Structures are given as C-alpha cells and as structure tokens.
C-alpha cells in the first residue's frame, strides 16, 4: 500500500487548472454486475433508455466510481494530502454503454477557504470514442489538516 503523507498542509501548492489525470476505461458486464451487487440493486434501471440500447447502458454513476481514485484521490494525496468529498454534481448527457471506451480527464477547477477549512474543486469530463461529451462531474473536497477537529462531517 502506498504510504501517504496525511498532513501535507500544501494548500498554496494546489495549482488551479492543473490536470489531475487523463486516461481511458472500457466498462465490462462484470464491472456492472459487481457494482449492482455492491449497491444492492438487482433490477436494470437502464433498460428503457433507448430501444437500441436496452440492457447495454451502464448505471449512471458506475464510471465515476471506477475512475474516482485514479482521477481525484491519488492527485489529492500526492499534492495536498487526505481529503473528503463535501459536494458532488453530475450532468448525465448521454448514456455510457457496456463495452464502450470512455476517456476521462480531470482538473483542479478552484480552491477556497471558508470557516477555517480548506476546499478544492475538481471537474472531470467523460468523453466517448466519437468525441461526444457523456458526463460532467464536479466535486468539492475538504482537506483534512492535522489541526482539523471533526465534529460531524459538516462543510
């Protein structure tokens, strides 16, 4: 397991606009099955998305789940230490199909301080092999500094 410096306190070193990662992933039926089991949902919710795509559309949040660590978490641990997500938004523009290749690119969208806490905003785009934008992922993480005293997880 990679050792992580949990208390980097490197807020000033966070570069807005910096790319966090960019890579491609192909979703398999096994990935879908594993995910459905994990979230305890055994009914295909996507099967009427489009007649031609019935049974082929993956759960809307599967790919963000699969890429999150490589796209955001590892970047954070490398640059500013441990963090937890406090805000999340998705725009689901087009369904992602089983077997299709998706290229994901993430970057630091912003950073700010509020009530003695420090936050980093990320954005990622998920693009299909034809170049079409499939999904937009925005999330805000709160950095866990050593002086941080958690009293419930409140942003």
């Amino acid at each position, binding site marked *: 397991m990679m050792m992580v410096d949990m208390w980097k306190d490197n807020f000033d070193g966070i570069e807005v606009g910096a790319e966090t990662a960019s890579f491609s992933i192909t979703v398999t039926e096994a990935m879908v099955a594993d995910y459905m089991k994990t979230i305890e949902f055994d009914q295909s*919710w996507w099967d*009427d*998305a489009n007649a031609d795509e019935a049974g082929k559309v993956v759960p809307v949040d599967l790919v963000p789940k699969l890429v999150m660590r490589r796209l955001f978490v590892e970047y954070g641990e490398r640059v500013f230490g441990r963090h937890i*997500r406090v805000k*999340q938004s998705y725009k689901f523009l087009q369904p992602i199909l089983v077997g299709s290749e998706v290229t994901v690119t993430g970057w630091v969208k912003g950073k700010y301080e509020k009530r003695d806490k420090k936050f980093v905003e990320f954005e990622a785009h998920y693009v299909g092999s034809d170049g079409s934008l499939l999904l937009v992922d925005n999330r805000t993480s709160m950095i866990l500094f050593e002086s941080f005293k958690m009293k419930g997880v409140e942003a």
Partner: protein
Amino acid sequence: MSVEHDIALVTVTKQVTFEKMYEFMGGLEGSVHSNPKLGETLGLGGAIAQGGHLVAFLNEMLCRTFRGGYGRGGEISITFIKAVRPGDTVTTGGEITAIEAEGDRQRARLDIWLENQTGEKVIVGKASALIG
C-alpha cells in the same frame, strides 16, 4: 415549493454496513471508508461511508422514477452535511418543485435528500430529469 404533478417518486431505503462500505471500496485498506483506525486518526471518528456510495442511492431513486429521462439529460447537485456510519439506515426523499418545458419534452426539477434512521438529513441537494 411543490407543484401539481402525477410523478410518483420511487424512494429507496438501504442499510449501510461496514461490509458494504468495504466492498464499495473494492477492498482498499488505505481509505477512511474501509479502515476505521485511519478514520479515527484523521479525526472522523471511525470509518464513514463514501460519498459515491450514498449518491448511488439518490441516483437509484431518480433512475427508478425517471428511467431514461435521468440517464440522458439528468442532473444532480448535492452537499454532504453529515457522516453516515456502519449500522446507519438511510432513506432517499424528494419533492418536485417545478415542471418546465424543454423543447418538445418537459423537465422536472426536484429538491432531494437522504436522511438517516433518526430523520436527520445527511445529504441535501437538487436534481432534474426529463419526463416522457
């Protein structure tokens, strides 16, 4: 503010166990979502459920309700306001606040939330989906 509509939101209730949290993390040991000692060290009071794990329950509600109208054109924006821990039971909720024309279709806008077994909201936010 609610509006008149005939859409029945399909809410879901899930029990969050450590085993499920661990499974969601793919067995990754070095995470506050799968390692209680690390959660303690980081001041979180133990392991807490991963945000994506909880958003999945809201997405399930929206997908069950709006089907393809969520997966193709849906939006969700939420804030995590309280930690969810092993043993908690969470239930999704929502209220449709507007129905708007969008091209030849309609878009429903909602306030959404996830609450724990004591009725405390742990996530609040907004979502939208296409109808029909």
